[in-house]
């Protein structure tokens, strides 16, 4: 399989996010390089998850949400005229805060759910092969290969989250978004996911939101720090740089204060 050119560059230009009249995130401009892991950190309510959701237009699920500005993946604006959010989401996969396998589907059907949606007819051989490849890609194959027909909800939390990652990569997205993927997991499962993120980097552009600064330091190449000036004010991107730099020698005082645990 040609995976080599699947990861894409993301350019965000002057992005503003609103929920009705509420200005949630202000003036974000950044470039996310292909085959890197980018982490967003910041205090609760700073808009980092909201911002992540605009990268696959999932914020539109909430009525009244809208954006101004531009998000381009390899030059194609996601918010351009006539771009269907459904198509965007097929190219930009997402993993959520809490594992959410479909409870009515078996492990295998969960992995194949996205592919079946794309209404491709799969021969049973191709389905088996894709399920195995995706589960291997999510480091879950060895744990579930003997019980592929059991419900996805029979797995542990960490396994469920890796199942969700397998489901997301089964449709071969260009970008993988993760919204605090480990916040509901124990340390061992967290480690397994972090290892997996490191491996996914070789094939995908990964963007992760995390509450855990050590996690950002461990898994990411680049880190963006989001903050808000006061409650009710829009969140903004304070600093975006190499992870090393953010954690060792940040340019902004606010970043340093947050990293060193003085607030947040």
């Amino acid at each position, binding site marked *: 399989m040609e995976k080599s050119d699947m990861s894409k560059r993301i350019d965000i230009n002057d992005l503003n996010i609103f929920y009705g009249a509420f200005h949630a995130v202000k003036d974000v401009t950044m470039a996310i390089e292909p085959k890197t892991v980018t982490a967003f950190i910041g205090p609760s309510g700073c808009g980092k998850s909201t911002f992540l959701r605009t990268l696959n237009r*999932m914020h539109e699920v909430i009525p009244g949400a809208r954006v101004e500005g531009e998000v381009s993946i390899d030059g194609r604006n996601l918010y351009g005229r006539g771009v269907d959010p459904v198509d965007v*989401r097929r190219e930009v996969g997402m993993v959520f805060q809490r594992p959410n396998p479909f409870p*009515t589907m078996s492990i295998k059907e969960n992995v194949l759910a996205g592919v079946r949606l794309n209404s491709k007819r799969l021969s049973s051989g191709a389905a088996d092969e894709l399920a195995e490849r995706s589960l291997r890609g999510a480091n879950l194959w060895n744990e579930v290969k003997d019980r592929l027909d*059991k*419900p996805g909800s029979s797995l542990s939390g960490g396994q469920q989250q890796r199942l969700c990652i397998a489901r997301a990569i089964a449709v071969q997205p260009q970008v993988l978004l993760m919204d605090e993927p480990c916040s509901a997991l124990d340390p061992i499962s967290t480690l397994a996911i972090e290892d997996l993120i490191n491996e996914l980097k070789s094939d995908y552009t990964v963007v992760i939101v995390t509450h855990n600064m050590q996690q950002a330091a461990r898994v990411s190449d680049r880190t963006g720090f989001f903050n808000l000036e006061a409650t009710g004010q829009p969140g903004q991107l304070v600093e975006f740089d190499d992870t090393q730099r953010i954690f060792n020698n940040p340019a902004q005082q606010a970043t340093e204060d947050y990293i060193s645990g003085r607030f947040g």
Partner: protein
Amino acid sequence: MSETITRAPRRSGPARRVGDVVFSGTSRASALLILVILAGVAIFLTVEALPVFTSGSADITGGEGFFSYVWPLVAGTVIASIIAMVVATPIAVGIALFVSHYASRRIGQTIGFVVDLLAAVPSVVFGMWGMQVFAPKLVPFFGWLEDNLGFLPFFADGSATGRTLLTAALVLAVMILPIITSVSREVFVQTPRLHEEAALALGATKWEMIRTAVIPFGTPGVIGGTMLGLGRALGETMAVAIILSPGPFTWNLIGTGNKTIPSEIALNFPEAAGLRLSELIAAGLVLFALTLAVNLIARWIVDRRSEFSGAN
């Protein structure tokens, strides 16, 4: 705080609090009460029906024994109820999905209210409407069925009044629509947002999201609602008694004929005595068993998939 706990008098086992004892006692009593009532009904039906099974078959209405008497009633009841269920369920699920996932909040609430209002219409009113208004309106439709599908035994000979089993079944469908709709709506609304978002994030369209997340999650509830509706259709008395002009069993759904158990009981009970009374009560026992079987089957269908229900 911890001091208070250690100082509390310790008996063997955990402390018994008055509130807990009272609550567990009353809830246990309620649970027992339902069993007692059910057993009481079953015993009454069985005891009162007993003469039917001990007397000679020539004494039973029709002169050929209880089974010959009751099977046309069972057939009429089951056929009418199944038609009602088959007609009502897809419409109810459609309304429920519209209200829960497509309509704006205001329109959804209005439709929900109207559907609930439908449940408040007394069955006798449905019966009168069915006989006076709906049945005559169906006569041309029956004529069409006869002309085009007359080769099927179900549509052999159209009735001139329209007061047929199919009419009764369609009115039953209207009557059970609210219960199926409101139960379905209730479960569709409860679909976890996480599952809906999971589907959307995979690139599902709205309908695909509903198909992958909402409907599978709601299926046990829809089955439950359908069975409640079926139960109501099986037991519906007044509307059927008014609409249907009763007669012997016939496969012809659009012609005169057929009876259902509840309407047979209602129409004959006031003047029945002796063995005839026992016959009717025995028919009631059969209906009771039928409804019980329907509920058990529904339970079985729901349980069969419980591993995948998301409750674990």
